[in-house]
């Protein structure tokens, strides 16, 4: 068994000679976007810059959570100072809403540093993303596709991954996030694939809404194991915090003795 690891390494090296995108990520090479110690360990140090990552909501109605997770990653990657590009098709904007400046500012993505591109067709979004990933002025490129985003197939995502790798240099990232409005089984060359659901929050001391919680399922990871975590987003400090799941039973309010439900509107 002792000789397996070197053999594997040698094989990986020779594969990397054939296809540079299979180059094994060595510790210390390239930048990482860190989420949370537990998740970073599974990811081998964090989400690698110079790569493409996919995010999709795990169910209908969770698009807000998926967008929020992607934007939180963009916030960490950009550090509030560097520019972020958001690419969406016209249809994605009508279907899921457009990025909203005041909300972005509160969430931790400076809206003054955001460039929004609306494209007519999904293929245009892929083209624009590929161009933008090569641009070293952007810290993060987010593209969203409606439905399963089947136009982003293995070939297309491979192109995007290569563009991201090209765009990454010692000081810049080439960090690409692809949001699909529906989870998909389409094969993809992305480095990771995330399925996002919101998680019940812990209300604050006054009964108001608590910090945003994400229920993350890592469905695919080229550098390590998959897994599932629940984390909170602290939009003041722009960091993820680990969170314990809140049982639904805890949060149910006793409604006996209240007025009967009234239909309005």
């Amino acid at each position, binding site marked *: 068994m002792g000789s397996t690891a070197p053999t594997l390494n040698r094989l990986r090296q020779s594969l990397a000679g054939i296809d540079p995108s299979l180059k094994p990520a060595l510790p210390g090479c390239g930048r990482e976007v860190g989420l949370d110690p537990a998740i970073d360990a599974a990811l081998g140090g964090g989400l690698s810059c110079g790569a493409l990552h996919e995010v999709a909501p795990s169910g209908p*109605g*969770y*698009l*807000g*959570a998926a*967008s*929020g*997770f992607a934007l*939180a990653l963009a916030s960490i990657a950009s550090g509030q100072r560097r*520019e972020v590009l958001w690419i969406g098709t016209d249809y994605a*904007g*009508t279907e*899921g*809403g*457009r990025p*909203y*400046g*005041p*909300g*972005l*500012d*509160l*969430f931790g993505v400076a*809206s*003054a540093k*955001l*460039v*929004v*591109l*609306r*494209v007519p067709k999904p293929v*245009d979004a892929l083209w*624009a993303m590929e*161009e*933008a990933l090569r*641009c070293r*002025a*952007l810290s993060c490129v987010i593209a969203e596709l409606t439905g399963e985003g089947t136009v982003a197939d293995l070939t297309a995502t491979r192109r995007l991954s290569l563009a991201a790798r090209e765009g990454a240099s010692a*000081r*810049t990232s080439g960090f690409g996030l692809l949001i699909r409005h529906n989870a998909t089984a389409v094969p993809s060359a992305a480095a990771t694939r995330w399925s996002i659901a*919101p998680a*019940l*929050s812990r*209300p*604050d001391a*006054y*009964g*108001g*809404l*608590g910090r*945003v*919680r*994400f229920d993350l399922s890592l469905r695919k990871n080229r550098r390590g194991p998959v897994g599932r975590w629940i984390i909170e987003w602290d939009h003041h400090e722009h960091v993820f915090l680990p969170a314990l799941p809140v049982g*639904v039973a805890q*949060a*149910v309010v006793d409604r006996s003795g209240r*007025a009967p*439900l009234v239909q*309005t*509107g």
Partner: protein
Amino acid sequence: MWLRRLSTDRVERHSSKPVETFVVVASVQSAQRIVALTDGAARLGLKAGMGLADARAMYPKLPVVEADPEADRQLLEGIADWCDCYTPLIGLDPPDGLLLDVTGCAHLFGGETALARDLVRRLAQQGLRARAAVADTVGCAWGLARYGKQGIVPAGESKAAMLSLPIAGLRVDAGIVADLKTSGLTCVADLMSRPRAPFAARFGRELLFRLDQALGHIDEPISPRQPLPAAMAEQRFADPIAREADVLGTIEKLASQLVTVLDRRGEGGRLFQVALFRADGAVHRLELGTGSPLRDPPRIRKLFEERLAVLGDACDPGFGYDTVRLSALATERTDPMQTGLGGDDHAEELAHLIDRLGARFGLRRVTRIVPQDTHIPEYAVAAVPAHAVRTATTPLPFIEQDTLAPAQPLRLFERPQPIDVTAEVPDGPPVQFQWRRTKYRVIHAEGPERVAMEWWRDDRGSELTRDYFRVESFQGARMWLYREGLYGREVARPHWYLHGLFA
């Protein structure tokens, strides 16, 4: 330049079998009259202005075509476009003339004579009969092209050339021409040999005004069809080029010439135009705006590459282009910058990316978010074209945070989505709602946050007050809902809408 048979040439160009003799008719004062005719018809003794009935009486089988002034006009515009390869300063002289200012251009074609000959010859190849004259003044050239000897009037000799022209060559009303004829005055020389005052008294100022214009006593500018570029460069080819790579290579070469000129003035281009002159006379024009003054030929090439990629078939090279021209229509001062030396110039790289995306998708699609002075959510920010936002935008006004969750949504629907809502009390927060056929039960709700509409902007007074709620469903999904209208005061049964999604 006079296109003497414009209407009939147009018809002939489009007909499959050649007909030598026909006339074009139109209703003039409720009578069918001949407005244009072919050389063949003219030889039969027909004239423009003759009634169709008279013509039919002479030649019962005379073929007739309806006049189409709009098509004539389009053809004239098309020819004017094509003439752009001689000079950028072209004026239309409807219905059948074009005015070209060839000052400073003629030497490129081997002199004025050669230019005029080339123009007439190339038009003839396209089936258009033209007469061209070059003179100091518009009036003189106009008269000579129509009534005089074609050719060149050397500078300062327009007066001599005008003498033999008939009075009609002065661009005056047919009525005046006829009146002068009855007095025995037929040519310009007759007019000039007599005192001016009686003419002014008898025929008004038009006659003398036209005469002065033709003689150059009064300046007559040509109003150009296309904006005059600040700088331009062009390249002609003996053999037309058709490959996209060749066209782009030419554009880059022209760009470097153009940039040399602009650099000397300390300017960069904001608006570029490429005109591609196709061998068969069609002209394609591509325009391109940029976010910042541009002085880098490879970038100019790259932008046009995007534009060409989008146009695809709309810009069919056909038999190829024989002239490519690049002009800078708008320029702006730039201060010379040091480029290179290893620094990462991120701002410039981003500006270039925005230009490229703009060239491909249209500048309006690349936007930045600019805050507006209103608290109505859908108007609180505007999407402003990114190239127009020159400096970093002012930060949005700070919105106070009262909870651990952001108070504004990440995504906002342009059109609020109607939803079915159940609430405990009519003006309370929702307990359950249905959106896109999915039911959501609300576990936490915060609100209402009241947004009153701006009555000073709402002239009909129909806008209803909104009460916004932030709700979290049993699954944890957070949404921004509002109830439109105050219960009982503004409406009997308020409607509910979903306006945004939180993370």
